[in-house]
């Protein structure tokens, strides 16, 4: 069973008062939260409320205007070239997979092991194949991304992120470009990861996944966290009408 109380484990990621504007539009308007080791946090909310931008701020693919990010009490923001080291510890899974199209499945997983971690090719290959087997893609090791289904592609991108042995993985709407059938196989991999104790931040519209896997659900609107709590809290006593409305649209499905 999923543990919903994680007050004992230590905080590994701190997000403090993140602001981000694009021109006049304030995308993130002071977002703060802590992430404990082994925790799964799920971000939900209407589109365009800054959830994806928030994830990108955490690994600095988007640089926030103000606020700070801390990984194990080391500052990720303003880290200069050190950011490449932090990013190795912060995996990311994208909505559009962003697999390296010119490399085979195993090549996708091992490339960063070789080029970033400096692993020798034999060890990298071994580790890459192990990660592929974790997501059930060992038989696709030599396939190119264009030869994979959407579900396989997303599982491959999870394997690519996992291979770096990250301390936390950011999932940016990992199933939004998949049909329900393929969504299921990706969510299954993520569920297994969560159960195995991986620390995960997930932006998703999959309420079933959020309710069954998250330790905490954060509801975002207009660049702010407007509601947060355990799945049971969110489910039984939504403080905001919009939360109810948002969840309602999914229960009606």
């Amino acid at each position: 069973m999923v543990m919903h109380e994680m007050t004992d484990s230590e905080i590994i990621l701190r997000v403090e008062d993140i602001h981000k504007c694009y021109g006049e539009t304030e995308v993130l308007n002071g977002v703060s939260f802590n992430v404990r080791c082994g925790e799964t946090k799920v971000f939900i909310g209407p589109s365009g409320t800054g959830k994806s931008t928030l994830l990108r701020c955490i690994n600095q693919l988007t640089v926030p205007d103000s606020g700070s990010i801390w990984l194990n009490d080391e500052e990720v923001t303003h880290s200069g070239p050190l950011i490449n080291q932090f990013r190795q510890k912060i995996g990311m899974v994208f909505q559009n997979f962003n697999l390296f199209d010119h490399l085979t499945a195993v090549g996708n997983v091992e490339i960063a092991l070789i080029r970033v971690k400096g692993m020798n090719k034999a060890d990298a290959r071994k580790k890459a194949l192990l990660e592929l087997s974790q997501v059930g893609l060992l038989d696709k090791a030599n396939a190119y991304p264009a030869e994979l289904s959407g579900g396989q592609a997303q599982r491959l991108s999870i394997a690519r992120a996992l291979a770096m042995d990250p301390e936390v993985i950011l999932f940016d709407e990992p199933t939004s470009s998949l049909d329900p059938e393929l969504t299921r196989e990706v969510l299954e991999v993520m569920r297994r990861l969560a159960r195995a104790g991986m620390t995960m931040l997930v932006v998703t519209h999959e309420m079933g996944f959020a309710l069954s896997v998250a330790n905490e659900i954060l509801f975002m609107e207009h660049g702010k966290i407007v509601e947060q709590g355990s799945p049971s809290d969110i489910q039984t006593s939504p403080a905001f009408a919009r939360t109810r409305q948002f969840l309602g649209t999914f229960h009606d499905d």
Partner: protein
Amino acid sequence: MSILSPAIIDSLPYLFSGIFITLGLVILALGLGLMMGIPMSLIQVYGPRPLEYCIRTYIWIFRGLPILVLLFLFYFGIFPMFAPDVGPFWIAAVVLGFRTAAYQSEIFRGAIQSISEGQMLAARSLGMSRFCAIRTVILPQALRRALPGWTNEYPILLTDSSVCYAIGVAELLTRGNQIVARIGDPMTVYIIVAILFILLNYGGQWIFGRIENRYTIPGYGHGDA
């Protein structure tokens, strides 16, 4: 064959050895253009503004001037002033190379810019430096996409190379002219020259076709779209 007079047959070896000069020019120019074009395209896409403007000016000049003007400028002007010992063959190779570099840079720039932004994001998210991401993720894809356009530089260079006749490089056309001057029969001689150019063109395209196939990746580029 009866249309080939003994005088022409005797001069064929001399004509044929012009193939090596022509091919040498083309290969050197392609290589120089490649070595210059890739860095130039990278500067255009990723480089600092002032450098980017330098490259754009370079491209503007070398695409904007007729080859003959460039050849004369380098052969009669620049080389005599700065490197008087360099012969016409090398000057021609440099001019053709500089010129194709301008075109190649634009080919590579377009290819790099066609790679989706997500590729860079994914590479950076794994901890790659910008340089590492360009080298291991962006360029291998961009070069594949550029290949069909890039191989098109070969027939262009091959045909353009005959202009080097004007500065006395002993390539195919120059040798053809010399033979015509010596023994006449321009029709036959120039037809032979033309056939040689066509064969060189065909052979080169066959080789580049093989290279394209060799680097084709499933679902990438060919035919799917």
